[in-house]
């Protein structure tokens, strides 16, 4: 019993390993703006900014977003040689994986030898549930971010906290803090769970003001 599945695991893993990160071609996308023009519609950006209050609100919630968990995967990409097997980042990623498993995400995968979470199953995590949040909070100090990304994550986290504090003192006393590093985001369900209606002009303008004060306002013309 079980031998067939072990052989399958082994063979599939060996085949999978024949593809490496550097083999992956860049994503080729057609120009959506051109398609919009052909369809006689204003470009997406114009359509978005037509809904005026939504944009700052969106940006407030969005900017704050998201050093995604698996983003630490892509940290390897820009600049610098990939770390060697057994490097500090690998050990950090490994401790993170162990911590996540011990704190409510029992199927969290180990990183590969570069410290990346590339195994396909990482894709299937939805990262929404309370167990994930608990695990993430518990393991926050172990997130295997490379230094530049870690600094950025800390900045995002600080400004997100400032934004949340501003919201709390501006008529939304139950406004939640952002999710921990590396996620750093606010989500609509999270905000709604506090009994806050996000689809109101008052929320929009408060959010825009707080985003501006926290230094996470929308970037214009980017």
């Amino acid at each position, binding site marked *: 019993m079980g031998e067939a599945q072990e052989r399958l695991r082994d063979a599939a893993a060996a*085949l999978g390993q024949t*593809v490496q990160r550097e083999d992956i071609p860049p994503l080729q996308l057609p120009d959506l703006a051109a398609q919009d023009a052909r369809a006689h519609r204003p470009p997406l950006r114009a359509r978005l900014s037509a809904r005026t209050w939504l944009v700052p609100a969106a940006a407030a919630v969005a900017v704050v977003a998201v050093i995604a968990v698996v983003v630490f995967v*892509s940290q390897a990409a820009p600049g610098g040689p990939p770390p060697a097997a057994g490097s500090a980042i690998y050990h950090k990623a490994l401790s993170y994986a162990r911590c996540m498993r011990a704190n409510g995400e029992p199927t969290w995968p180990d990183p590969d030898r570069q410290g990346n979470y590339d195994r396909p199953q990482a894709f299937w995590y939805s990262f929404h549930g309370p167990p994930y949040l608990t695990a993430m909070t518990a393991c926050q100090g172990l997130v295997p971010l490379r230094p530049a990304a870690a600094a950025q994550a800390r900045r995002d986290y600080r400004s997100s906290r400032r934004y949340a504090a501003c919201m709390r003192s501006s008529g939304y006393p139950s406004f939640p803090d952002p999710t921990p590093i590396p996620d750093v985001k606010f989500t609509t369900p999270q905000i709604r769970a506090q009994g806050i209606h996000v689809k109101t002009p008052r929320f929009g303008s408060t959010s825009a003001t707080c985003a501006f004060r926290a230094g996470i306002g929308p970037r214009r013309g980017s």
Partner: protein
Amino acid sequence: VGISVTAGQEAGGTVGDAVGAEHLADPAAAVTALYREHALGLTRLALVMVGDRQAAEDIVQEAFAGLHRRWSGLRDQDRALPYVRSAFLNGCRSEFRRQKAARPRDSGYAEYIPPAVSAESAALIKAERREVLQALRRLPRRQREALVLRFYADLSEADMASAMGISRGTVKSTLARGLTALRKLLGEES
């Protein structure tokens, strides 16, 4: 992963990369960030599934290009992941149908060498492993999918059910049948 924007368009959700504001206005950036995170894992998964490197890359590209086309129509960007997952599996299915159609009628399964094991990766894969992969590709589509998602991607039965669009009961029975068939093909009959 990563994308969890739950905020959706109403309150501005976003996707994956370090800073999110421009993602709202720029689907290409959002989709590209997602692709960067997931392309390697998915390409590996597709390769195991269909056995052809080029096809695997195309399937993944096409799934993300489809996401990009539909981006502004996604009411809730939470739908991004489920969309890519099902586009990905559909891509694998069409590729498999294509291979089947291209296979000479009378050569039969036994003689058919799938691209995975004839191409560049052959050198890297031992004969014993090749035998397993060939056996895998001789299974019916659903069994093969189930075995790969379970034993390569390590998905739970619940995740498999939603990815494959079948019930958990069907996942269980498909897995059991797939394993039995695989054992038979590998000469491991009990």
